């Protein structure tokens, strides 16, 4: 199939996603869940008379939580869920690359998650008097974009791997959710982690994503140099992850076809 066909498929996935109705579940997921989660940490910090800087750390982490959850549950479980609904069989029989379907979903999911991210970020900064700075808007957008691209690239890899787990995929997602919260330092600076945990932390792209976004809008970084090497590592991961996902997907598809796990019946 041509690139044109693959792009058409990506566009179709995004448009279809946009057409889906806004349900109460989706609205509460956007506007209540991340804020409630974040408020717990903010009030703990406030009770301990923590600095505004620490509150800012928590606010940026808490806002980006939705991206991580979107990657884990939205993207990671995507193909396993499609398998359960009978969609996977249809997607596989269609003459497009599955990576186009995943790319379309990654973009849709990123757009979807941008709503709670921005809402939680600006509302909580306003409520708790945390000053966000944008000395170099281009750098801020680049940091956010790379953080999101590497995250959703990771999501595409998860989707490929989780396809093997079928109905158990959500257990795997559960298993990953909390440790990543911890090791990536969503609500606290990772410099307080013990050495061994710091090593684990440095293997997770999300840690770098959080780090460069914080340095941009909290600490006022103005040049790319101030964000290196994290920014470069994220850029590399953002570029290679779709290719990694493509290979994983092919490998997993072959394994699943051999084991007979692609369909329910």
């Amino acid at each position: 199939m041509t690139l044109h066909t693959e792009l058409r498929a990506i566009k179709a996935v995004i448009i279809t996603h946009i057409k889906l109705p806004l349900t109460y579940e989706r609205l509460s997921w956007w506007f209540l869940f991340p804020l409630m989660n974040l408020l717990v940490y903010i009030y703990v910090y406030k009770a301990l008379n923590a600095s505004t800087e620490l509150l800012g750390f928590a606010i940026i982490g808490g806002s980006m939580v939705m991206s991580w959850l979107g990657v884990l549950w939205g993207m990671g479980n995507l193909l396993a869920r499609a398998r359960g609904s009978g969609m996977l069989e249809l997607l596989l029989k269609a003459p497009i690359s599955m990576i186009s379907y995943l790319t379309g979903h990654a973009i849709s999911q990123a757009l979807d998650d941008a709503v709670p991210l921005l809402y939680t970020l600006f509302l909580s900064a306003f409520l708790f008097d945390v000053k966000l700075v944008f000395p170099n808007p281009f750098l801020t957008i680049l940091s956010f974009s790379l953080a999101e691209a590497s995250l959703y690239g990771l999501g595409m890899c998860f989707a490929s791997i989780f396809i093997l787990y079928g109905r158990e995929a959500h257990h795997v997602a559960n298993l990953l959710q909390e440790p990543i919260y911890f090791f990536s330092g969503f609500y606290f600076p990772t410099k307080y982690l013990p050495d061994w945990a710091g090593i684990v932390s440095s293997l997770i792209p999300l840690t770098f994503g959080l780090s460069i976004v914080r340095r941009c809008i909290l600490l006022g970084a103005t040049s790319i140099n101030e964000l290196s090497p994290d920014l470069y590592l994220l850029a590399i991961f953002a570029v290679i992850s779709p290719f990694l996902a493509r290979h994983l997907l092919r490998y997993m598809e072959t394994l699943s076809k051999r084991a007979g796990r692609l369909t329910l019946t």
Partner: protein
Amino acid sequence: MSYSIETDNLTRAFDVKRSVDGKQRKETILAVDHVNIRVKDGELFGLLGPNGAGKTTTIKLLTTLLLPTEGQAKVGGYDVVKEVDKVRRIIGSVAGNEGGFYWHLSARDNLWFFSQLYGLADDQARKRIVLLLDIVGLADRADDRVDKFSSGMKQKLCLARGLLNDPQIFFLDEPTLGLDPNIARTIRDFIREDIVRKAGKTVLLTTHYMNEADELCDRVAILDNGKVLACDTPTALKRMIGKATVLELEVSNMVDDVHAELSGLPGVSHLVVKTTDPSSNSASLKFHMSQEESLSHVIDALVRKNVKVDSMRKTEPNLEDVFIHFTGRGLRA
């Protein structure tokens, strides 16, 4: 002769775990066992068999969703293992489970989404969607959400979805499963008249409804335990039973040990018993008899056991009788 589908000793084994005496044991079962079929261009070919016969697994192998453990298959001349993309471009398929829709979106939006996966240009897609919705009788519900559709409507929408890419070869897995008789008839007519006769597509259909296979298919392969027992036109298959007389008796007060006695009577080649009402021990008995005179022995045996004969009729052999002829049991047994 040109074939749309060819299989050569196509085999698919699955490893299953079974608990024997409290211990997990791994067993290998052959879901598809050295199947050889050839489906001609423009033919409506049926795979008939009970649940678990291997029909769906065969379709999954042919539509590239499963890898064979042995043997080969070609669809449209392309190898289903080595030329997956080429096979996917020329096939359409429909399974009888109505799945894989965006339930909160309209029929039109759903079809548009799938049309894009097949690379149809926007204009072309919109025209084709209008045409297909009209053909399947859903034109007036095109903008209704799919979750508001009845089972029959969803099944019609599945057919429309399967035809979006104007496939050369169409796979239908139990297309009328669970549908009410009128809708099933409409769908059968659509398959026979529109897809095969008018559009000249090749169709491979699986079913466990013998009437469906008999009525629709140019040729039928009868499957059981993954093996093809027989393959021919429905008329030729029914002729295989030879001169056997088929008798159906409706009885009540049925007792268990009658089965063995009746099966052993001279002239009775096959007997299938189906319980119709457990509360009155009512059952339907189907006999294949090589000698019609044996009927008196059957009646004597039933009277001796105080089994009451409610009705009796002689019928023409159908495809289920062919299945009974080969396996000694009914399609739904």
